[in-house]
C-alpha cells in the first residue's frame, strides 16, 4: 500500500519558520478555518459563544477567533484544530447559517516581533497598501499583496497574520521573506 505522508502548504513535512532580525515568520499549519455566512433576514449568530466582529475587525475568544470578511460574512479560526472537522462544529453551533470548510483552501503565516510594534508597522507598510497607523490590534482586512488576495490580521501590537490562497503559499512566503529580509538590512 502507498505510504502517504501529510505535508504542509509549503510542501514540507514540518511547518516552515524563519527569523529576520526582530521579525519571525512561521507557517501556521494547525489553524482550522471555516467561513460563516448569515442568511438574509436572519439574526447575527454567536457561534460557540464567540461574538462576531463588525467591518474591518478581528475578535478572539473561547479558544477561537473570527474576522469580518464581508457584509454578513465571517471567517472563524481555531488554532490547533486543522485536523478536526471544525466546519462541522461551527455548523452545529450555528445551524441557521451557511458554513463552509476553508482550512485546506488557505495558508496562514504568523509574524511575531520581538521588538514591539515598530517592526510590524514597517513590514505592513512594505507589504500592503493599507494605513498601517490606523490598523491597530484587532483589525483585519482583505487586501492585495503582490497581486494576490490576502487577509491581514493584526492579532496584537507585535503580532500579524497573513492568510492567503493555499496554492499561492510559496509566492506569499517569498513576498513576506523578501520584505522582512530587506527590513533587516535597513
Amino acid at each position, binding site marked *: 500500500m502507498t505510504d502517504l505522508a501529510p505535508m504542509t502548504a509549503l510542501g514540507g513535512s514540518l511547518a516552515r519558520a524563519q527569523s529576520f532580525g526582530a521579525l519571525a515568520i512561521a507557517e501556521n499549519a494547525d489553524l482550522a478555518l471555516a467561513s460563516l455566512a448569515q442568511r*438574509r*433576514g436572519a439574526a447575527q449568530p454567536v457561534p460557540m459563544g464567540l461574538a462576531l466582529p463588525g*467591518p*474591518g475587525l478581528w475578535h478572539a475568544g473561547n479558544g477561537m477567533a473570527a474576522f*469580518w*470578511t*464581508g*457584509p454578513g*460574512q465571517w471567517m472563524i479560526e481555531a488554532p490547533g484544530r486543522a485536523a478536526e472537522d471544525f466546519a462541522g462544529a461551527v455548523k452545529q453551533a450555528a445551524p441557521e447559517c451557511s458554513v463552509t470548510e476553508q482550512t485546506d483552501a488557505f495558508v496562514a503565516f504568523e509574524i511575531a516581533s520581538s521588538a514591539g510594534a515598530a517592526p510590524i508597522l514597517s513590514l505592513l507598510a512594505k507589504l500592503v*497598501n*493599507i*494605513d498601517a497607523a*490606523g490598523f491597530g490590534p484587532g483589525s483585519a*482586512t*482583505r*487586501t*492585495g499583496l503582490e497581486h494576490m*488576495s490576502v487577509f491581514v490580521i493584526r492579532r496584537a501590537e507585535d503580532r500579524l497574520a497573513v492568510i492567503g490562497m493555499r496554492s499561492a503559499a510559496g509566492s506569499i512566503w517569498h513576498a513576506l521573506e523578501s520584505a522582512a529580509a530587506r527590513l533587516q538590512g535597513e
Partner: protein
Amino acid sequence: MLIPHPLLGLRDAQEFTYLGDASLIHRPDGMAENAAETFFDYVYLRDNPAGVHRELWFHEQGDRSWLVVTRDTTTHEILGAELARDVALAAKGGAQ
C-alpha cells in the same frame, strides 16, 4: 486614487475592478412584451458624460461588495460611494 468604502473607509482603487454605469443595476424585465427594445437600450445605449458619473465598482481584493461610486470623469475626483445593495433596495422601495 482612493475610494471611500462605506464600511471600510478609504481604500486603494487598485483593490477594485470597474464594471460600468450604475444604471446597470436596473435590469429590465426579460419576460415583458417590449423586452427586445428595453434590452437594446439596457445593453447598448449608455450616456458617456464628461463630469459627474455614477458607476459600479467591485471590491475584488476586499470584502467583495459592489459599490456605486460617484466620480467626476474630467478630474477623477471621487464624490461618494454607497453599497450597491442599498441603492438597489432603495430603488425597489426598501423591500428586501
